[in-house]
């Protein structure tokens, strides 16, 4: 990497950034044993509470902790305000885009985005064409991944509009920090986050089918073996709604019911945490045991709200990402507040040629990859790995995009050999319903291996508490 990454805590050696000053003073006063003991306490508590994620491909029932780092990531409130307005702007445009795609397709007709790139995308759902959803909202819950480049600028790395997860860690991390270090919270004015479940429930109720006075909301999970099951159970409990599996629901007369001990009960809003493909075996994957047969019929009839809507994947695909700034201009007539990361689209000939000539410097991503899989990080890759990607790009260029290797910002993090800088990102959760709301901060993920840029929990990432600090 050419340039020095931005350090979130230090301006230069030993000189803390102003919003971290009080914290670093506190940190320097802490005996090493106390911090070690607090770290052990955090681990024990996470185990007891069962804040774990299931690991795919390992023995059934294997559960692992996501490592929690006790050094918080701090954002001064001025930075947050700008970030917040940029996020709201972006998600408004994305919702407008999805609505447009499933209705008049003005943006395609205007030639802003090549039509075949949307209509031939596997995430485009023709079943949704012409279907009206309450409030025209499709991505009710969006997780927008933000990174900070070497110049200190925030940039959007990725939009997650299908079933973004991680918010439970944001909430549990805060609870843990308050339990471990209550004194920090009396010394700092940290914006609270624990009202997230209330905001989420209110948001979900606000998008119920029209005419429903007191909507019944449920959370649809794939079950206890899903990697994010803890989060599903946690959110359902916090919102006081039923956590259902596909087998608990059925459709009769184009309406959705759940099986209860007192007989069938009508359901109005499904906060679903399973992918489109598994939602209705009569329409999508016929072998799916996770969904509800007939659900799409009820949905298209407007008798049930599904959040996020079916077909949002058409807007968070990596091949569509480069066009989001255009969407903001097209639908809102505004210029983007937060920029994208520069992206080469390999279906374009000149982009492809540039990328093939510069592979060792670039990050190449598979358009449909997720979770940090299907990705080449040029500077860290061997020659053999680069050659494999080169062959694949030449064979099917439309499957790839490329970006410069970003010097993601770093934040001091506890490692086996003491505090050391590690790369981080940020996933704020943007809720759209009657309004667009964001609980201050989000989930900060940290790549725990030295030099690593991969923050995904499935690949050795950890998390930190995220503070929006009012001065």
């Amino acid at each position, binding site marked *: 990497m050419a340039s020095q990454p931005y350090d979130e805590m230090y301006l230069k050696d030993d000189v803390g950034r102003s919003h971290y000053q009080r914290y670093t003073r506190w940190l320097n006063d802490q005996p090493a044993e106390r911090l070690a003991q607090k770290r052990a306490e955090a681990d024990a508590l996470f185990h*007891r509470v069962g804040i774990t994620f299931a690991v795919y491909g390992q023995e059934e029932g294997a559960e692992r902790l996501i490592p929690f780092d006790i050094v918080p990531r701090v954002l001064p409130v001025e930075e947050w305000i700008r970030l917040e307005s940029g996020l709201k702007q972006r998600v408004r445009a994305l919702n407008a885009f999805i609505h447009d795609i499933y209705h008049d397709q003005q943006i395609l007709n205007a030639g802003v985005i090549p039509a075949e790139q949307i209509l031939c995308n596997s995430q485009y759902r023709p079943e949704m064409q012409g279907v009206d959803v309450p409030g025209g909202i499709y991505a009710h819950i969006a997780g927008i991944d933000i990174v900070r480049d070497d110049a200190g600028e925030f940039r959007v790395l990725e939009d997650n509009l299908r079933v973004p997860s991680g918010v439970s860690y944001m909430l549990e991390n805060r609870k843990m920090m308050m339990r471990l270090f209550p004194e920090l919270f009396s010394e700092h004015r940290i914006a609270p986050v624990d009202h997230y479940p209330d905001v989420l429930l209110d948001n979900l109720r606000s998008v119920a089918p029209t005419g429903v006075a007191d909507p019944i909301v449920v959370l649809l999970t794939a079950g*206890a073996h899903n990697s994010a099951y803890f989060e599903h159970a946690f959110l359902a409990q916090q919102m006081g709604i*039923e*956590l259902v599996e596909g087998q608990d629901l059925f459709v009769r007369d184009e309406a959705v*019911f759940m*099986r209860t*001990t*007192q007989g069938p009960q009508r359901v109005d809003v499904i906060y679903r945490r399973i992918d489109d493909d598994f939602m209705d075996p009569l329409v999508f994957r016929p072998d799916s045991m996770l969904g509800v047969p007939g659900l799409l019929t009820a949905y298209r009839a407007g008798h049930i709200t599904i959040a996020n809507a079916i077909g949002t994947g058409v807007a968070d695909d990596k091949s569509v990402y480069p066009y989001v700034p255009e969407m903001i201009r097209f639908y809102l007539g505004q210029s983007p507040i937060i920029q994208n990361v520069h992206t080469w689209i390999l279906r374009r000939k000149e982009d492809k040629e540039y990328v093939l000539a510069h592979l060792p410097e670039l990050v190449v991503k598979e358009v449909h990859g997720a979770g940090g899989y299907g990705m080449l990080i040029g500077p860290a890759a061997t020659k053999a790995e680069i050659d494999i990607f080169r062959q694949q790009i030449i064979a099917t260029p439309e499957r790839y995009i490329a970006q410069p290797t970003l010097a993601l910002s770093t934040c001091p993090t506890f490692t086996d050999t003491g505090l050391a800088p590690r790369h981080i990102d940020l996933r704020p959760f943007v809720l759209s319903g009657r309004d667009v709301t964001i609980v201050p901060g989000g989930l900060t993920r940290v790549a725990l291996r030295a030099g690593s840029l991969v923050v995904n929990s499935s690949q050795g990432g950890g998390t930190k508490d995220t503070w929006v600090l009012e001065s």
Partner: protein
Amino acid sequence: MLSRTADHLYWMSRYIERAESLARLVDAHYRMSLLPHSGETLAQSLGSTMTALHMEEAYREKHETIEPRAVFEFVSLDRDYGGSIFSCLRSARENARAVRGSLTSELWETLNSTWLDARSQAARRSSRADIGQFVEWVKERSHLTRGVTIGTMLRDEAFHFTRIGTFLERADSTARILTAHQSDLLPGADAGVVPDPYQWSVLLRALSAFEVYRRVYRDVITPFKVAQLLILRDDMPRSLLRCCKEVYTNLKSVSNEQSAETERRAGEMHAMLHFTRMEEITASGLPHFLESFLAKLRDLGDRIASDFLVPPAEA
């Protein structure tokens, strides 16, 4: 509430109760094994207990003879056998995990840490000497779980299904332990025959009734009174009457459109025990009585499942 949720809660509490019952049985026999000259009685009691609990076949697959330490080890910690205490704790926790959102966080954490501790105890064990400690610990965890359930859960359907599971399982366990000892409880065993003190202590301790017996009867132990205590005393927490009463009252609190017949049968079982005298039971034969009781209990369990827990699919 969701039928599936009720089902998981019901099984969660059944498994915890089963773990406790097994821990009591192991504990009682383990204490007996520490006494001199207990060999033959111990082997006999273990044999009939394993038969009554339908454990013998699984045990015989691993061991040739009924050897007390092997039995203790098998019942307590065998990982492969689904009926061991270890497996019950795992099943209780798995059921709890499936509905952790419907539990109070205290209850979930109690069940989760019980399982995590059980797992590390099982992994750590080197000698067989601490089986007594293990079952003692299981009883404590069960007491704790019950206390947390009663102390933290809202008195709603979730609570009632949890209680139904507990008392159905407890009734089943008491009836099976009585079955294992029915030959000692037969009529005529009172006069002349000196009852085997070891046997009594096992039976009574396994049902936490040793001190209760002394307190209630202030008398030497006779088979007639032991049976009366464990079957017909309303104030004895593990008696058949008490368990049936709890099942009936909790069932009435969750009543739905199709559950009338199930409630009637539960009420009938309770009334039968409430108005029967011990003499009538011994007249028709204790083994017959216990056999028919267990059959009715099974029927009740099946009916609760189809009325509430796993309703037949909608058209």
